[in-house]
């Protein structure tokens, strides 16, 4: 009986060691990922780029399409998440202003009214 208990304890210690190594010391490095799995700061940077372009181009449908690569969430939610990160980071006021303008524009944007993109 003592041997079984010792064996099980050894297995548990081994599992703990394996998890520590596999998660902390040498975690899996992913390649060929999608933008939706980017770290939040990189996603926020991407959203800021979209906001910068929108500021110049004024094409809200294009901005929404560009944001769509970050996941299935509504575009305005994606921008809001970026705004939260931008406030915490913090981004420059002018950059936060750009994000804010994009979010406001997207709040009233109705994709159903957009002409289909060829």
């Amino acid at each position, binding site marked *: 009986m003592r*041997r079984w208990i*010792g*064996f*099980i*304890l*050894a*297995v*548990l*210690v*081994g*599992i*703990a*060691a*394996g*998890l*520590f*190594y*596999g*998660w*902390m010391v040498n*975690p*899996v*490095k*992913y*390649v*060929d*990922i*999608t*933008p939706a*799995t*980017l*770290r939040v700061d*990189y996603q926020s*940077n*991407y959203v*800021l*780029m*979209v906001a*910068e*372009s929108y*500021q*110049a*181009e*004024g094409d809200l449908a294009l901005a929404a399409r*560009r944001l769509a*690569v970050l996941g299935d969430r509504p575009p305005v939610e994606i921008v809001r998440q970026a705004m939260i990160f931008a406030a915490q980071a913090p981004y420059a006021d002018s950059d936060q202003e750009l994000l804010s303008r994009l979010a406001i524009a997207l709040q009233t944007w109705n994709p159903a009214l957009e002409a289909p993109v060829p």
Partner: protein
Amino acid sequence: MRDERGHWYLLTGLVLGVVLGLTYAWLISPREYTDNSPASLRANFKDQYRAMIAAAYVANGNLPRARDRLDLLKDEDVARALAEQAQRSLAEGDSLSEAQALGLLSVALGQGAPTAFSPVTPNTILVTESPPSATLPAPATATGISLVMTPTVQTHEPSASSTTLNQTPAVTRTLLSTGTPLPTRTPTITPGSPFLLQNQTFVCDQDLSDPLIQVVIQDSTGQELSRVEVVVTWEGGEDHFFTGLKPELGQGYADFTMTPGVVYTLQLAGGGQVIPDLYPAECAAESGDRYWGSWLLVFARP
């Protein structure tokens, strides 16, 4: 009896546990799945990220910021990656504005242009130009994308290897930022009669740092055409490039950097006139300095 079996069972359990732990950590529930950097993006998403960087650069003109963003992708040669993507974008018929943005950023990075760059706001760019000629974009200035080469008559003293070459003065090409609306459609190639070589000139311009083959494509009215594919071949190699990727030099402009000692043949994609024996040749300045000259080829529909 028990003591004779020793403690190997502990080691067995430990190894078994480690294997189970690693299997779970690496295969079943790996960490960092939502904590990735742009360098890990799939190739097509990297292209999208790169295009977005270029679009933002065209919007705000902030080159250091664009460079920092591009560093995230960990491309070996950032400018080349941009230029290649611009070529692919044109070849696949994607957005011309996207290809131009990529081209602009590629050029800016290649030149180490200063940060000042008039951001593109809707309907703000007008390209004006005198007859096409060989010029290399000067660094952008604080007042706009001023890519001006002053018209000068240059002394052309061909080296022994270029005694039959003619020299023409450089002509100004200027990109102005104005309030004039940007045309929504850019002239592009349409089926018709083949292009013919209208002018082949060897140009000596000290402002060109590399020996170039410069191509300008025009329609029958003299309007420049973008997205025309040009094929350059040489012994053991071939390259394709498109007009319109350096819009500051004209929608119908494209260039290719020659390697000294290599002889090139140029032809527009889809057949047509073959232009052989294009190779770098030296020019001499008044001070005696020698530098590489460039070929300027102007094609037009008859």
